[in-house]
C-alpha cells in the first residue's frame, strides 16, 4: 500500500494530537501561542496540499481515494480552516481557557472533512462524518457556563446523532442491496435494471441523512439555533466546512456509487433543492440576529449548490466546485466581521450594527463586499458562481428552476442590503470605534480580495474546476 498518498492526512492527524499535547504541557501564560502555531502549521499543510494536488491513487484496498476531486476539496477545507483559526485566536484568548482543545478539535474536524471527501467506502465515509461531527458538537458547547452555547451543543448533539442513525440505516440497507460497502462494487451491483424496493428505501434514508448535514429543507431546523448559539468562529467553520464536506461526500457517493439509480433520487433532490432555496431566502428576511440571518442564507446556498448535482453534468459539478471556493471566502469574511463586532460588544443583533461605517470602516466595507458576493452582485465572485450554476441547469432544461434561483437571489439581495443600509446610513448609537485584531484583519483582507479577484478574473479557478469535474465525466 502506498502510504505517501496519505501524507496530508497523516500530517493533519499528527498536528491535531500535537496541539492537544501542547495544550496540556504549555504553561498557562504561554497558551496564546497555540493559536499562532496552529495557523502556521495549517498554512504549511495547505502548501503541502497544493504541492501534492496532482497525486491520485487508492489506499486501503479501494476504500480511500485520492484524486483531483478530493484534493480540490481538501484545499478548500484547509483554506477555510486557516481563515477560521486566524480570526478565532482573539476569540479564544478572550475566552481564556482550553486554548489547546479548541484548536486541536478544529484540526480534528478538518481531518474528518478530509476523510469524507476521499472516502470511497460506506465505513470510511461514516468514520469521516463522525470524526467531523463529534469535534463540532464539543466546539458548539465550548463556552462553559453559557446557556446559549450549551443548549446549542445539546441540540446539535441530539439531532446529529439522530440524523446519523437515519443515514446509517440507509447505508446498512444499501449494503444489503449491494452486498458490499465499496463504491466500486456498489456501482456494479445496483444498476438501472434491478432497482428494488430495498434500494429505494435505502436511498431515501441516505438522502434524509445527507439533507441534515447540508441543511436541506425540511431537515434544516437545527442550523439557525446552532449557528446562533455556537461561538462565532465555530459557526463559521460549521457553515463552510461541514456543508462543503457533506456535499463532497454526497457528490462522490451519488456520482460514483449510485449514478444508475438516478431516476429514483433525482426527483427528490430537485424538489428539495427548490424548497431549500425558497424557504432559506424568505425566512432570512425577518431575522434580527445576524448569525441567524447568515444561517438561513447558508441554507439557501445549500439549495444553490444542489443545483449542480441536479444538472448532473461536467458543467454542474465544476460550478459546484467553483461555488464552494468562493463561498468559503465570502462566508469567512462575513463571519470574521461578526466575530470582531461580537468580541467587543457581545451582541450579534443587526440593529447594533447601526452606523458601523463611522465606527469601523474596515468591518463595514468587508461586510458589504462579502454579503454582496453571497447575494450574487456583479462584479463579485458570487455572481460568477451563480451564473455557472444557472447555466448548468438551463443546459439540462430545468429553466423553471433557474428562474426560481434568479428570483430568490434578488430576494436575498434584499435582506443583505438591510444589513448594509443599517451599517452605512444609520446613526451610530455609540461613537467608539471597533478594534479589529491582526488575524481578523488578515482574514478580511484575504476574503475581500479573493471575492473581488475571482469575480473579475474567474478563468484560472474555473479551468481548474472544469478539469477536476472531468473525473466524473471523462471526455
Amino acid at each position, binding site marked *: 500500500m502506498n502510504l505517501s498518498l496519505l501524507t496530508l492526512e497523516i500530517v493533519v492527524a499528527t498536528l491535531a*494530537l500535537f496541539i*492537544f*499535547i501542547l495544550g*496540556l504541557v504549555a504553561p498557562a501564560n504561554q497558551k496564546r501561542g497555540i493559536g499562532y502555531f496552529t495557523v502556521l502549521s495549517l498554512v504549511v499543510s495547505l502548501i503541502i496540499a497544493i504541492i501534492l494536488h496532482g497525486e491520485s491513487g487508492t489506499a486501503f484496498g479501494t476504500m480511500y481515494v485520492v484524486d483531483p476531486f478530493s484534493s480540490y476539496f481538501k484545499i478548500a477545507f484547509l483554506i477555510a480552516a486557516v481563515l477560521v483559526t486566524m480570526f478565532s485566536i482573539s476569540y479564544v484568548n478572550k475566552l481564556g481557557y482550553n486554548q489547546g482543545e479548541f484548536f486541536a478539535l478544529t484540526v480534528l474536524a478538518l481531518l474528518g472533512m478530509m476523510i469524507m471527501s476521499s472516502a470511497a467506502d460506506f465505513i470510511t465515509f461514516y468514520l469521516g462524518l463522525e470524526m467531523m461531527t463529534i469535534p463540532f458538537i464539543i466546539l458548539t458547547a465550548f463556552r462553559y457556563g453559557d446557556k446559549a452555547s450549551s443548549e446549542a451543543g445539546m441540540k446539535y448533539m441530539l439531532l446529529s446523532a439522530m440524523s446519523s442513525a437515519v443515514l446509517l440505516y440507509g447505508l446498512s440497507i444499501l449494503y444489503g442491496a449491494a452486498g458490499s460497502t465499496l463504491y466500486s462494487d456498489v456501482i456494479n451491483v445496483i444498476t438501472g435494471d434491478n432497482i428494488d424496493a430495498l434500494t429505494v428505501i435505502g436511498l431515501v434514508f441516505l438522502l434524509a441523512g445527507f439533507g441534515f448535514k447540508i441543511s436541506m429543507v425540511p431537515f434544516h431546523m437545527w442550523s439557525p439555533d446552532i449557528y446562533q448559539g455556537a461561538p462565532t468562529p465555530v459557526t463559521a467553520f460549521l457553515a463552510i466546512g461541514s456543508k462543503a464536506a457533506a456535499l463532497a461526500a454526497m457528490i462522490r457517493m451519488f456520482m460514483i456509487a449510485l449514478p444508475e439509480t438516478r431516476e429514483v433520487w433525482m426527483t427528490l433532490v430537485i424538489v428539495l433543492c427548490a424548497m431549500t432555496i425558497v424557504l432559506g431566502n424568505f425566512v432570512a428576511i425577518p431575522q434580527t440576529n445576524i448569525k441567524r440571518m447568515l444561517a438561513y442564507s447558508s441554507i439557501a446556498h445549500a439549495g444553490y449548490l444542489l443545483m449542480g448535482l441536479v444538472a448532473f453534468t461536467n458543467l454542474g459539478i465544476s460550478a459546484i466546485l467553483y461555488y464552494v471556493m468562493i463561498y468559503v471566502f465570502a462566508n469567512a469574511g462575513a463571519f470574521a466581521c461578526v466575530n470582531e463586532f461580537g468580541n467587543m460588544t457581545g451582541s450579534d443583533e443587526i440593529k447594533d450594527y447601526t452606523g458601523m461605517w463611522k465606527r469601523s470602516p474596515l468591518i463595514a466595507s468587508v461586510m458589504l463586499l462579502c454579503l454582496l458576493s453571497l447575494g450574487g452582485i456583479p462584479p463579485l465572485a458570487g455572481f460568477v458562481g451563480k451564473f455557472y450554476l444557472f447555466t448548468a441547469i438551463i443546459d439540462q432544461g430545468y429553466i423553471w428552476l433557474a428562474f426560481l434561483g434568479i428570483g430568490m437571489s434578488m430576494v436575498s439581495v434584499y435582506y443583505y442590503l438591510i444589513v448594509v443600509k443599517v451599517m452605512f446610513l444609520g446613526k451610530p448609537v455609540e461613537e467608539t470605534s471597533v478594534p479589529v485584531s491582526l488575524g481578523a484583519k488578515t482574514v478580511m483582507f484575504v476574503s475581500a480580495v479573493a471575492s473581488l479577484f475571482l469575480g473579475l478574473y474567474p478563468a484560472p479557478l474555473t479551468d481548474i474546476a472544469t478539469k477536476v469535474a472531468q473525473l466524473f465525466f471523462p471526455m
Partner: protein
Amino acid sequence: MLQQYSGLGIYLIAAIIFPFIIVFVALILGPKRPNPEKLTTYECGLDTQGPTWVQFKINYFLYALVFVVFDVETVFLYPWAVKFQALGLFAFIEMIIFIAILVIGLWYAWKEGALEWM
C-alpha cells in the same frame, strides 16, 4: 421448522407460569402476622438512613464517561489479537499508534483532573 424450537417454547411458557404458581402458593400457605419491624424497608438487615433519592457525586459520571470510551475502544483489540499472526508487523505498528492515541487521551483525562476524587 417450528418443531426445532418447540422445546424452547415449552421452557419459556413454563418459566413464565412458574413464578406465579410459587407466589400464589406462598400467598395461600404462608402465615400472616405483620408488625412494624417486619414492614420496614430491607437494607442488608440494618436500619435505613436518609432519603433513598440522593444525588450521586458528579465524579461518578466522569469516571463512567472515561470508562465507557476506553472500554469500547478495546473492541478493536479483539479481532486484531485473534488474527495477530496473520496480520504481521504493519498491523502491529498500526495498533501501537492506536494505543498511543488512547494513552494521550488517558493522559489528558488525568491531567485535567477527571480521575481525581474530590
